[in-house]
């Protein structure tokens, strides 16, 4: 079974590698959204330093949602999704592998780019660690929960916006904990509680979301 999962993950990564524009667009979106806020609110250094965690996290949320539409749509269109259902691994495990591939390509780069955005907002460098860690723990949760929404809206009219409406309310705890951890750290307090809660969210969603995704995929295939 692991050979099957490795092949699935490898295939997804290979496709993403040979289609860099898809991946790059979502990441570029992240940078653009974060750059828009100061243009709207004014670039006062104190203001920016204060809103930086929130802005970076909201931008990460939106970028993740944009890239989620790609998760199953292409597979559904070219028939590989059917083969996945008929594959050697249970659908829940295969779904987890797909989400992992998606996160490696769309979520992990955000962790790497975030310090650059933090620089734009003049966030203190001692907070970069907390920011990166919160994103590292939080973006997989976004991918996991978002995958449920992506599976539910597969092939549905107005899919992209509908996906956003379904998934954004469910993202709220991750946003609060993620941005809150950095805000906590910037106030000089230890962000341990928030990061541990994020870790807990990650563990629970990693355990349960793949099965919800599998159920949603079967519903969508009718």
């Amino acid at each position, binding site marked *: 079974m692991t050979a099957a999962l490795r092949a699935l993950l490898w295939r997804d990564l290979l496709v993403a590698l040979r289609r860099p524009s898809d991946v790059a667009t979502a990441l570029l979106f992240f940078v653009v959204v974060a750059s828009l806020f100061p243009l709207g609110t004014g670039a006062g250094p104190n203001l920016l330093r204060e809103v930086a965690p929130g802005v970076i996290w909201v931008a990460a949320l939106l970028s993740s949602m944009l890239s989620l539409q790609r998760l199953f749509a292409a597979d559904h269109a070219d028939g590989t999704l059917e083969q996945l259902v008929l594959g050697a691994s249970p659908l829940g495990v295969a779904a987890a592998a797909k989400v992992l591939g998606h996160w490696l390509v769309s979520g992990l780069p955000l962790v790497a780019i975030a310090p650059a955005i933090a620089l734009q907002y003049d966030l203190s460098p001692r907070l970069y660690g907390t920011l990166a860690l919160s994103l590292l723990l939080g973006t997989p949760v976004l991918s996991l929960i978002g995958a*449920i929404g992506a599976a*539910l*809206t597969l092939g*549905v*009219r*107005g899919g992209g916006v*509908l996906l956003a*409406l*379904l998934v*954004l*309310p*469910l993202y*709220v*705890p991750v946003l*609060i*904990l993620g941005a*809150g951890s950095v*805000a*906590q750290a910037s106030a000089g307090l230890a962000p341990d509680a928030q990061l541990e809660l994020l870790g807990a*969210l990650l563990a629970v969603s990693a355990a349960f979301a793949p099965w*919800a995704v599998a*159920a*949603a995929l079967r*519903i*969508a295939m*009718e």
Partner: protein
Amino acid sequence: MNATIRWFWFASPQTFFPLAGTIARACGWLAVPLAAAGLYVGFFVAPTDAQQGEAYRIIFIHVPAAWMSMFLYVVMAFWAAVGLAFNTRLSAMLASAIAPTGALLTFLALWTGSLWGRPTWGAYWVWDARLTSELILLFLYLGFMALQASIEDPRRADRAGALLAIVGVVNVPVIYYSVQWWNTLHQGASVSLTRAPSMAAAMLAGMLLMALAFWMYGLWASLTRLRCIIRERERA
């Protein structure tokens, strides 16, 4: 064997249709006197609040509406789960019928909460923890309705909505507590009664009466809507 038959007897939409009408009518008739009594107690009998004066009386609509909006979401998720597990059409139809009423009550809770905030805090929206949670609950209801509306096949719409409702109901406590924590962090204003050690008995009575009234209204509206859905779907 007999118990099983009786259990699923009303699971057929055709069989339940007349019963739904009877229950709906009864609840509709009950809702009116309950609401009248509740409003009377709330607006005339309950004592004036020490700090907020008369303006606080809007809680007799706000709090019961909020209670019912959360209760209806859980009920909706329950019937959706039953429909998914037992593949019964009626349960799924009932869940779809409850959603708009739940959304309406959530909106009412938000609107009255905002009206309460104005005289108390000077602003129509103060990002109070409970109001923010209600807002997210409204998004969850609207998301459920939007998902069902955009899927053409009714069976797939039922099942997809059911899964979404189950995921939602599991997430609601997480969302609620994280918003609570967020609110304490940012020292937001709170739209609530002064922390009296015990709420005056009359206030509690008023809110309970209104809660029952909203419950009867919810039953009437949902079952009436259910009858419309049954008529629509079972035409074929």
